[in-house]
C-alpha cells in the first residue's frame, strides 16, 4: 500500500504543469480563425498611437529592452538613499547646488529622483542656505 501511494504522488505534480503550459499557447493560434487575430492586431496599434504621452518622456530606445517597448524609462534612484544620508547639511552649498536650477529654483522630485523624505529635508536645507546667502533666492543677471 505504502509503495503504491508514494510513486503515485510524485508523478502527477511534474506532469500537470507541463501539459498545461504547452497546449495552451498552441490551442489559441490553432483554434482561432483569421478573423479575430486581425482585429486584435488592428486594435493595439491604434491605442498605442493614441497614447504617445509615455513615449515622449522615455526617448528612443532607452534601456535594455529594445524590442517590445520603446518607452522604457530608466528608474531614478534617490542619491541620498544610496549614500545613506541622515541629515542634509545646509552649510554645504556645493552639494545643494546640484538640486537647484540655473536660476536658483529647487528642482522637483520627478527630475532629480529624490525620495519624498529626502526631498523634504533637502527643501529645509536649501531654504536655510538661502537665508544665510550661501545660495541665491534668484540668480541676478
Amino acid at each position: 500500500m505504502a509503495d503504491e501511494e508514494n510513486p503515485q504522488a510524485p508523478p502527477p505534480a511534474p506532469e500537470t504543469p507541463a501539459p498545461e503550459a504547452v497546449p495552451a499557447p498552441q490551442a489559441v493560434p490553432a483554434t482561432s480563425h483569421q478573423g479575430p487575430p486581425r482585429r486584435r492586431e488592428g486594435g493595439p496599434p491604434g491605442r498605442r498611437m493614441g497614447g504617445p504621452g509615455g513615449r515622449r518622456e522615455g526617448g528612443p530606445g532607452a534601456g535594455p529592452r529594445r524590442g517590445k517597448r520603446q518607452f522604457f524609462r530608466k528608474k531614478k534612484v534617490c542619491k541620498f538613499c544610496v549614500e545613506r544620508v541622515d541629515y542634509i547639511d545646509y552649510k554645504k552649498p556645493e552639494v545643494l547646488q546640484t538640486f537647484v536650477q540655473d536660476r536658483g529654483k529647487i528642482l522637483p522630485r520627478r527630475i532629480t529622483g529624490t525620495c519624498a523624505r529626502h526631498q523634504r529635508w533637502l527643501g529645509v536645507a536649501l531654504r536655510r542656505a538661502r537665508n544665510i546667502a550661501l545660495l541665491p533666492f534668484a540668480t541676478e543677471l
Partner: protein
Amino acid sequence: MEERQYDLIFICRPDTPEEEINKLVATLEHAATERGGKVEKTEKWGTRKLAYRVSKHREGFYVYLVLRSTQGEMIKELERRLKVADPVIKYMTVRLDEEIKRQQKLVQKRERRAARRPRKPAGTGEQAAAAS
C-alpha cells in the same frame, strides 16, 4: 528645559579687520557662557562670496558657532548683540537638537537592522518555536 543645540552663523563686512571680528566673537562667547550656555565650536570660514547682495556687499566674512544651552534667553541676547554690532550684516540661528535626535534614531534603527539580518534564518525559526 532640556538642553538644546544651535548653529549660529553671522556674516561681517569683508573690510572689517580680523581683530575686530575676534573681539566680537570673544564677547559673544562670553555672553553665551554667562547665560549658562556652552560654546562647542567656533569656526571662521573667512571671506566668501555671497549668493546675493547683502547691504550692498557681494562678499562677507563668515563666522560659525555651535552652541548648547538650556536657556532660550541666551539666543535672544546673542541675536540682540548681533543686531546692534556694526560689522555684522547678516546672522542666522538654527535649532538643531531635534534633527540630531532624529538622525541618531535613524542610525540606531539601521544598526539594529544590520545586526539582525545575518541571524535571520535561525532567528525566525527560534521565534516561531517560542511563539508557538
